[in-house]
């Protein structure tokens, strides 16, 4: 478990590097996929709900420290995402998750919640309806992130990499 934590933290930094330099180049009308969330879902499915929640908190903390976000907004959204993803944790189903579209569906759910909660805590615009906000700031980034997570499904090694 400790090794997984170390890998999860080590992988965070190169991925954030990609997230802040290359990923904006593939933005569609300002919507970008969240690579950090894919990493969070991956490790939560491997480590379980409690570790996923804690890892989400750590990722959020690092994101808030490094980027110019409101301090605490990513911490809340990533913690909740890690917690929700944790409900899918099942040691016997790991192979099934990582070699099928189920992984992307979990990413879709988790990313939608993450984006929606993040937008809720980082924006003061409450004039929009919740439903509209859910679609614009939750679903669309979630769908894009889920599509990008298919890359991981396609190239996931047959043997456990950790």
């Amino acid at each position, binding site marked *: 478990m400790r090794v997984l934590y170390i890998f999860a933290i080590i992988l965070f930094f190169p991925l*954030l590097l990609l997230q802040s*330099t290359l990923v904006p180049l593939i933005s569609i009308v300002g919507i970008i996929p969240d690579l950090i969330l894919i990493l969070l879902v991956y490790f939560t499915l491997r480590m379980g709900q409690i570790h996923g929640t*804690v890892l989400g908190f750590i990722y959020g903390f690092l994101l808030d420290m490094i980027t*110019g976000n*409101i301090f605490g907004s990513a911490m809340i959204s990533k913690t909740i995402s890690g917690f929700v993803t*944790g409900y899918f944790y099942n040691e016997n189903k790991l192979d099934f998750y990582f070699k099928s579209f189920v992984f992307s569906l979990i990413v879709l759910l988790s990313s939608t919640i993450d984006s929606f909660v993040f*937008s809720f805590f980082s924006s003061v*615009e409450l004039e*929009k309806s919740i439903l509209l906000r859910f679609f614009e700031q939750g679903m669309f980034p979630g769908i894009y992130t889920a599509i990008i997570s298919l890359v991981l499904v396609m190239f996931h090694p047959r043997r456990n990499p950790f």
Partner: protein
Amino acid sequence: MLRFISSVWWNFKEYLILILLLVISFISLSLNQNPAIKKVRAIAFGSFAASTAILSDIVNIAKVKSENERLREINAELMLHVNKLREYGVVNETLRKMIGLKDTLKYPLIPALTVSKSFTIAQGTITLNVGSDNGVKPGMPVINEKGLIGIIYATSKDYSIARTLKNFELKLVVKNERSRVDGILKWNGEDLVIVNVPKTYDIEPGDRIICSELSSIVSLPIPIGVVVGLQNVQTGIFNLVKIKPYADFSRTENVFVIGVIESKQKKDLELNFFKR
């Protein structure tokens, strides 16, 4: 009692951990303006920006060719503008001398490169490869060849973070260049809008919007965007003016930081006035 606590912990530890972490996160939300937190964040993003700068250089090299073509085109257009402006400048200088006005056109520009971008829907920020060692300070405007990009929010030794106009925390006093009407510009998560504009104000689609001299953040006449439409026209007593920014924030690379924080001088003057 211990057994009870133990059983609660074992039965609900997932929820207890979640609640604990959320409480810490909520406390963090209230610490945003804490100077110590700001300092630690400046060090954190400064260290990370050093590594993003390397990757960003590689990405930029790949885009140099298309960038060059675009710049040549802009260069040609600018050359024509400069010629025209030179003529105006000569006339202007003569006229200024005649009426004794002070020249206000000399602003120190600090060239910078965007090394990373954070484009969340509500909080657009960019990291620049210039910091306090280059004379950059929080509050300085960031521009490119098209117009205002944002405002420097935090600086480290070699890097700085700027909030773009697509950041809901940035609100600016702007002005309609044609009708000289002022308003407050902000990002609503979807559009740049000037809010609470009385319906009697003269604002029309196509009008250029620039920074207003009334602004305590940017009081230089930097172009921001163009009016594309009015909302709430049928209802209420105020209009919502939708603005299309000149600058494309997602493709911003080479920028300039204007090395002035005029607002400080202004504030000092205003405070002096009240202290008198």
